[in-house]
């Protein structure tokens, strides 16, 4: 797995976390609320500013009307001309008309009946163009007075408010994402530790436990619960292993007595039916001892509590030895047996040798005459684990039976010698090494593959 891939996986793990999803929902809700309240604030602010402007314009119109009533036309016209000049500096527009004649104006304002209206693109005497102007017209004596206020200020206020709201929103969203990411990463780490502990247990390290924080959260409570179950599992496994060892010892001694006794009986008989019977008895006891031994070996491997065996083992040399051991037997059965390839795995050489021997013995016993049996070790690629393969082009095993042949005491060929424990042992050895055992059709024949993990984390 490459670095980019790992990061992608880690990222996917984080963004799939409940905490992160919660943060996303939070962000969506927050953005909706912010949008609605922003619109409301904007409208309220706009309304307030407009009301203020309208009140101002109305007051100014009232003053102009008073002036028109109180003064003679010459004085009034001088005053409004002065007003227009002063207003120009204060960004206010004014125009006074008398029957189509412009009395005073600081901008091109239309003479309209007494009303409020919005006028776009008003040119002032200072050469500016005001984008939008709120205009109030009214009669003052014989004059038509048009007063206007530039609305650029209102727009600026709206923009300022919108800008502040957007800024607050952006900061909040970033904070929520960070909180969600952080919480998700924390849960992810806690879950990762539980996962790692379960991985170790499944590899046979029954002492592994998920760490629990001093101040437990929900995940820690689950971890604690898992740990309780693992404790129980460990006790049960240890009991089973001890029981197996105790049974082994307690049965071996009487079995030894029986064997020696039967052999003495056999030695004392002198031909005839009695000797045949005594010989059969010895043979049965022998078979019993073999089955018993095979069961115990499997039980011991399955019940092993200690860490996975981790000595470097050269599968190639193991297979070469096994091929050497079984080569003559294969030849006697009209078969050819060969070993090839190289691969080093972490494991137990004795167990792997016996497993490989069982596979070879199985192939020699069941592949039939003329079969070609190939033992192969290899590492398909840097990302994949090493494999140990035993392949033949013999009779094979029907697909429906393939899963079953790994179970104890299952013998497909009842005529052949064997305890029905050979492949069960191989499976136990594979599991002890964290390896996967695969049975496949070699077309024709059977291919048994032990796939070792590339890395501990890839289990």
């Amino acid at each position, binding site marked *: 797995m490459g670095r980019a891939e790992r990061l992608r996986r880690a990222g996917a793990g984080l963004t799939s976390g409940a905490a992160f999803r919660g943060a996303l929902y939070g962000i969506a809700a927050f953005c909706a609320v912010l949008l609605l309240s922003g619109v409301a604030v904007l409208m309220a602010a706009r309304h307030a500013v407009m009301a203020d402007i309208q009140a101002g314009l109305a007051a100014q119109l009232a003053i102009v009307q008073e002036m028109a009533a109180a003064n003679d036309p010459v004085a009034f016209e001088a005053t409004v001309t002065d007003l227009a000049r002063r207003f120009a500096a204060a960004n206010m527009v004014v125009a006074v008309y008398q029957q189509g004649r412009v009395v005073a104006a600081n901008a091109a304002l239309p003479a309209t009946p007494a009303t409020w209206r919005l006028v776009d693109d008003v040119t002032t005497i200072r050469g500016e163009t005001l984008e939008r102007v709120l205009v109030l017209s009214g009669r003052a004596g014989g004059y038509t007075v048009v007063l206007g206020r530039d609305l650029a200020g209102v727009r600026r206020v709206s923009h300022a408010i919108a800008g502040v709201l957007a800024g607050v929103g952006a900061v909040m969203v970033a904070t929520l994402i960070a909180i969600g990411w952080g919480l998700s990463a924390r849960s992810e780490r806690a879950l990762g530790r539980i996962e790692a502990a379960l991985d170790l247990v499944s590899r046979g390290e029954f002492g592994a436990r998920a760490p629990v924080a001093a101040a437990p959260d929900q995940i820690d409570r689950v971890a604690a619960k898992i740990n309780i179950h693992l404790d129980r599992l460990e006790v049960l496994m240890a009991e089973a292993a001890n029981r197996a060892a105790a049974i082994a010892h307690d049965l071996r*001694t009487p079995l030894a007595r029986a*064997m020696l006794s039967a052999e003495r009986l056999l030695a004392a008989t002198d031909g005839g039916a009695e000797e045949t019977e005594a010989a059969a008895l010895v043979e049965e006891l022998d078979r019993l001892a073999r089955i018993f031994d095979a069961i115990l070996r499997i039980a011991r491997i399955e019940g092993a509590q200690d860490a996975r065996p981790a000595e470097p083992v050269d599968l190639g040399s193991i297979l070469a030895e096994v091929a050497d051991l079984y080569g*003559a037997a294969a030849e006697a059965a009209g078969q050819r047996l060969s070993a090839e390839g190289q691969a080093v795995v972490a494991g137990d050489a004795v167990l792997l040798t016996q497993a490989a*021997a069982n596979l070879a013995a199985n192939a020699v016993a069941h592949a039939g005459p003329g079969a070609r049996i190939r033992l192969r070790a290899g590492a398909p690629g840097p990302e994949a684990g090493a494999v140990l393969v035993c392949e033949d082009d013999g009779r094979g095993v029907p697909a429906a039976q393939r899963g079953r042949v790994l179970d104890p005491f299952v013998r497909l060929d009842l005529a052949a010698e064997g305890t029905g424990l050979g492949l069960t042992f191989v499976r136990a050895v594979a599991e002890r090494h964290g390896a996967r055992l695969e049975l496949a059709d070699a077309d024709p024949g059977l291919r048994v593959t032990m796939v070792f993990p590339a890395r501990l984390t890839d289990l």
Partner: protein
Amino acid sequence: MKILLVEDDDRIATFVAEGLAREGHAVEQLGDGRAALARCLEAEPDVAVVDRMLPGLDGLSLVRALRAAGAAMPVLVLTALDQVDQRVEGFRAGADDYLGKPFHFAELLARVEALGRRKGGAAPETALNVHDLTLDLVTHRATRAGQDIPLHAREYRLLELMMRQAGRVVTRSMLLDRVWNINFEPGTTVVETHVSRLRAKVDKPFDCALIHTVRNFGYVMHGPR
């Protein structure tokens, strides 16, 4: 041979002692580890057969004590616990051979006799002879009646082991153990087929057979009698 048998299970001890006596060995039987240690050092048997679980002093401690006291007699450890690592532990303690229960008496006898044989022969041998077959231990060449017999490395080791025990039974499990270093039931007739290949080279071209099958469990090499 003088054999000291240290086994606390009376019935097994009796069967084994009687069997060994029938084969012409002088057997002394003890059931306690501590008593056995003193007796071993005093009587210096040719071979000691020691059970692993004993009252007084366990079998492995007994072997360790013997070795610490400088006693070099071969020791065969019997055990009802035959796990592989315990086997290794047994050899580390100084045992010469290790046999799990249950066992065939013939297996025990073959192993005891092989151990008793090993003790003798102070001068290192350079060649082994059985009838007209010679195995040169220096050049690794086998010749019979003046004819060279080409052998593979494994065949050489098989033949060497059987010739060293000439006249005595070598069991299949002894061969598996010493030629292939294997301590499990191999499942098919692996030893038989290897021996039959060896026979095809060593016996078949000649007028009399030297490798003989012993009932169903081993082989013995000897010339015509």
